[in-house]
């Protein structure tokens, strides 16, 4: 990160005073999946403690146990040297523990102050007094937000500040932040770090969960690394670096294809993460395969979310769409997938107009879609893997016999696909919802590629995936491009975009506000665009 270096590593442990928090021997299983096995953790007063590891390492699960959201199968928690039992978030709040979740937990129709005071009805004073207190806190810690504003009208960055204020309002002495930078621009990340330094300066301890080595090195005094459901090391900031941290996080995978590991783990500069392993694509000739012009589309509340958007994507090209969440990404992805109605404008694939056509026509025109929320949009959770692989192709001639579905054929094909995509499942008849995130994504990709798509739309395709699965996705995206597919990769992860995109556009408030070619990606410059500062301004 090229931002200002921390004056001093925030919060070095003060020796001698009792530990505000220790966890030991924590185990937790979900069904047959062991998420934590004998994990431990220790927090010193007034420190920012990084908790890092790849996806699925158990970082969030461990903190959810601490916050009372998950009941551990075994283990002990001590707060200020006393053993405690935390059955619910209420207990955790009572012990001075607060948590900011990765998915912001707010009642979107409530105002900021209403969201902040929720659950404190035992406390005294009216909302006006609470609003004053919030203003005071946001001034003190640099967390600017209007207490009267309705939460769903705020930007993602502001909503995250509300979450931190919720914790501070309750006077927490331990603040847990779960992947807080996911939806922030690089500039907002710097501002967040500045606030965190103020917060620890007043004696609060912070647990900072991340899977990006770069970020924890910028803010944390000590860093604990988790892998396979346990803590494997804790190192002081001073005695480690990005490479050292990355090799702790990935273990046996280290050393392979470094640019991908670097992208997934956020090692080093964003721009250099895509070390010029890939040649810069030449400007393509001929007409674009996918062309979007003047598209207007509404969000779920009937408010315009895309305002006359234009895009062109050529065959054999990966177009990255960068931006902070909530700037029209979901709407763009769903428009391109033929799921969301196009109010105005046109979407053409290979010259034929698709705007206004039913989803089925988009599918047969060769559009394949890998949605962001795999569980909600990607699969039929309660149905079998076989059913899920058939989904969308149930009327294909290949699977029909005498007006009925040829189940024998379908099952053969499913078994074959499970092999080819190495989908780990107890069998083709296991419910798809029971698979791990990585295997669900393999299933979704397998279905998408079955259709031999000419346009592939992906949104945050590696979010929440472990490194191996993320690499699988990267490989498939490259395959698609090499096969002559026009790929649209919508992502909030600049590392991922820098690695894969031949060209990048920035989406802000439903419009494209800038474009860069491979070799000209600069994190802070892109960050300014993501924050809505236009090129011509």
């Amino acid at each position: 990160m090229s931002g200002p270096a921390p004056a001093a590593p925030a919060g070095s442990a003060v020796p001698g005073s009792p530990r505000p928090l220790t966890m030991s021997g924590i185990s937790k299983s979900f069904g047959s999946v062991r998420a934590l096995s004998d994990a431990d953790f220790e927090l010193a007063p007034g420190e920012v403690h990084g908790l890092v590891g790849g996806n699925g390492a158990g970082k969030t699960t461990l903190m959810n146990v601490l916050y009372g959201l998950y009941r551990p199968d075994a283990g002990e928690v001590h707060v200020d040297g006393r053993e405690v039992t935390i059955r619910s978030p209420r207990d955790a709040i009572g012990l001075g523990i607060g948590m900011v979740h990765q998915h912001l937990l707010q009642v979107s129709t409530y105002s900021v102050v209403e969201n902040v005071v929720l659950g404190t009805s035992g406390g005294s004073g009216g909302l006006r007094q609470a609003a004053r207190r919030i203003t005071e806190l946001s001034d003190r810690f640099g967390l600017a937000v209007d207490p009267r504003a309705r939460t769903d009208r705020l930007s993602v960055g502001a909503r995250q500040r509300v979450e931190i204020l919720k914790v501070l309002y309750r006077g927490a002495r331990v603040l847990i932040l779960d992947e807080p930078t996911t939806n922030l621009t690089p500039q907002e990340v710097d501002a967040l770090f500045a606030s965190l330094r103020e917060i620890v300066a007043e004696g609060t301890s912070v647990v900072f969960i991340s899977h990006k080595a770069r970020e924890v090195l910028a803010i944390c005094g000590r860093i604990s690394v988790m892998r396979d459901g346990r803590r494997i090391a804790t190192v002081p900031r001073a005695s480690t670096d990005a490479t050292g941290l990355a090799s702790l996080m990935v273990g046996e995978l280290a050393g392979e294809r470094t640019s991908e590991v670097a992208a997934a783990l956020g090692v080093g500069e964003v721009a250099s993460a895509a070390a010029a392993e890939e040649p810069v694509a030449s400007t393509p000739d001929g007409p674009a395969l996918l062309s979007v012009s003047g598209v207007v589309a509404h969000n779920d509340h009937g408010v315009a979310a895309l305002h006359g958007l234009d895009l062109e994507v050529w065959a054999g090209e990966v177009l990255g769409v960068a931006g902070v969440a909530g700037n029209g990404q979901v709407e763009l992805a769903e428009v391109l997938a033929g799921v969301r109605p196009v109010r105005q404008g046109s979407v053409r694939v290979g010259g034929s107009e698709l705007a206004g056509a039913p989803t089925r026509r988009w599918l047969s025109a060769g559009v394949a879609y890998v949605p962001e929320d795999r569980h909600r949009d990607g699969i039929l959770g309660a149905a079998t893997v076989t059913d899920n692989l058939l989904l969308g192709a149930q009327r294909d001639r290949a699977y029909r016999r005498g007006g009925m579905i040829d189940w024998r054929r379908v099952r053969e094909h499913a078994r074959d696909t499970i092999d080819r995509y190495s989908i780990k499942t107890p069998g083709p008849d296991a419910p798809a919802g029971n698979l791990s995130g990585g295997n669900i994504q393999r299933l979704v990709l397998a279905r998408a590629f079955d259709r031999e798509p000419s346009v592939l739309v992906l949104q945050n395709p590696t979010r929440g995936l472990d490194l191996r699965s993320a690499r699988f996705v990267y490989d498939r995206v490259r395959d698609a491009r090499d096969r002559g597919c026009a790929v649209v990769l919508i992502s909030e992860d600049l590392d991922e975009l820098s690695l894969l995109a031949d060209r990048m556009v920035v989406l802000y408030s439903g419009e494209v506000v800038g474009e860069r070619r491979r070799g000209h990606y600069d994190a802070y410059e892109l960050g300014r665009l993501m924050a809505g500062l236009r090129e011509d301004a």
Partner: protein
Amino acid sequence: MTEFASLAQLTVVAMVPFLLASLGTMLGGLAGVFSVSQEGVMLLGASVGFLVSYGTGSSVLGILLAAGIGGVFGFALGWATTVLRLDQFVVGLALFFAATGLAGLLYRIVIGQSATTPRVDTLPRLEIPLLSDIPLLGRALFAQNLLVYLAALLAVGLWFYLYRTRSGLDLRSVGENPKAADSLGIPVARTRLWTTTAGGALMGVAGAFLPLVFTATYTDTIIGGRGWLAIALTFFGGWRPQFIVAGALFFAAMDVVALRAEVSGIDVPSQVLLVVPYVATLLVMIFAFRWAKVPQFLGRNYDRESRTA
């Protein structure tokens, strides 16, 4: 009494079962539990209220026990959907059946086969001096039985509680985003349990109101769809007490118009008049479902440890 004044008075009386059942539906719904057992719970309330009043001569006791049995069914809905996390609609239907069967069974057991239809005394009117002498609306508003006044107070009280207190803010957050509520220490299951229990009690009273105020007798068809109409009314009222009161007035007016027109001998087949409330409701729902601000998590169960929600 003028024709208008008497119609107004009837309408206010007819409002009460709609209002109580709808407020009960709303209360559970704002915490995220959608009940579909109104019709059955109301019938059970009518049966219990009638039988207790018939046996003891005390209609107050009848109403209290109707509230009690309604509360039991409300609690069962809350328990099955929070602790056991069973599907809200399926459990609601099962409770609807059980309550319907129980209502008829209790009546048959206590009354048996009797040649004459047993009757109870209806609730007395409490006339508020001076105010009830106001022309036109005086008697409609101030010469009613105790339950009418209580229902009105309840609507105002619920509005104040839900929209003007911190505790009401907490309650509504459970129906809007239970995960957010839970993460701030608001007890989701407990909130859902007490709201469905109180809601069920209100439905029980709404049912008891019919034999104890309207008919003085019990029949298996006494509810006549008012439980289902109460669900429609809750949507129509946008899940807010103040609009539910207004909506209840409309539903009651439809009820009264249908009855009155028949008596006054307008030259229209009686069947046409009798379908007016149902058809009017169907038409009104076209608009109601557009504007109703339904609690975001209505009808969905909450599982803290679910990893996919």
